[in-house]
């Protein structure tokens, strides 16, 4: 009987350590701990060009994460990119003249939406629209303009 008892303990230890491993993966390795399904509200921003922005991209203000991109679609009438931003409800004091721009984290980093609060005393509500937007800087475009300009100057 002693033998089976040790076996039981070892099996128990094995299963427990496996679960600890899973728990470690969930909490320490993945984003589960920071992934709390917070209350959020949605606002839309229309960009002339949203560049490499993706669903789940970061939305930040003053360098702090305040939400994420929930959907990106193309408006076939205005030829604009319609980006839906999910903002956490605790940040509900964004002025309605907030500027949204697509920035790049670092030279080759991911693109994210930066919100620059304006001075209005009215706040953006659920379903609100950001009127002033600044498109993503497309590297090829910028390079092209630069080359064109420097060619002009040489003449």
């Amino acid at each position: 009987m002693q033998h089976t008892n040790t076996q039981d303990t070892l099996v128990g230890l094995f299963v427990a350590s496996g679960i600890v491993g899973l728990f470690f993966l969930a909490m320490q390795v993945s984003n589960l701990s920071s992934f709390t399904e917070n209350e959020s509200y949605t606002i839309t921003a229309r960009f002339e060009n949203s560049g490499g922005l993706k669903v789940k991209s970061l939305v930040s203000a003053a360098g702090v994460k305040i939400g994420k991109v929930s959907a990106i679609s193309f408006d076939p009438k205005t030829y604009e990119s319609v980006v839906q931003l999910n903002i956490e409800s605790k940040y509900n004091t964004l002025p309605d003249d907030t500027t949204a721009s697509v920035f790049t984290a670092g030279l080759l980093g991911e693109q994210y939406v930066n919100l620059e609060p304006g001075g209005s005393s009215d706040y953006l509500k659920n379903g609100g629209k950001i009127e002033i937007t600044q498109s993503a800087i497309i590297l090829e475009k910028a390079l092209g303009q630069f080359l064109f300009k420097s060619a002009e100057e040489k003449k």
Partner: protein
Amino acid sequence: MIEFLQHLGKETHTSFTKLGRGTYFLLQTLNGIVSVVTRPRLLINQLYSVGVLSFLIITISGLFVGMVLGLQGYYILSDFGADETLGVMVAASLVRELGPVVSALLFAGRAGSALTAEIGLMKATEQLSGMEMMAVDPIKRIISPRFLAGIISMPLLAALFSAVGIIGGQIIGSGLLGVDEGAYWSQMQAKIDFQDDIINGIIKSLVFGFVASWIALFEGYDAIPTSEGVSRATTRTVVNSAFSILGLDFILTALMFGDN
């Protein structure tokens, strides 16, 4: 020419017959799982021999694989000045691929071959027919508990493998090579998604556990009851398991990680 065609036809016929027997065997085994629930003792014994005895090889291999990933990743990433993202590289490759796949291959080598040999020998020494004589269903008594134990152990072993590997990568990365420890973990947490990476890894290891146990048990049960037959069956278990695991891994990866 005719002989070749005859040979081809015979081979095709045998392999389809074997697949058919395997499927029938699988259905019987699944049917037998119900009766395992009423006799948990059998399952505990098998969890011991399938899971606990594979524990050491899995954790040690995981540690070394993680350490190698830490080293290689550091050399490559530091060329681009991106050694801060070492944690992402180590964790993503372990959780998505290496954890489930390598632990399944080790599982097939360590536990699968043992299962085949054990059941093949039971058959060769007529223990299985003895049980039938005593009106004990060998599938319910012998096969199903082992099958269930394999399916339960595999995700646990894969999770352990990944966890130990990530710690190994951290030991090498920030302990030896000087990657910032905070960056190692925070970059990892920012990039590894629970749903997309961890859950998909667990699904993979469940599938591998299912396939590896099925192959091991069926090869044992289907072995020619001689010592040579058992040895061949054991070889086939390891070879076929490795093929199936790697092939399925490709399919599962294409299905799971296709959209990014």
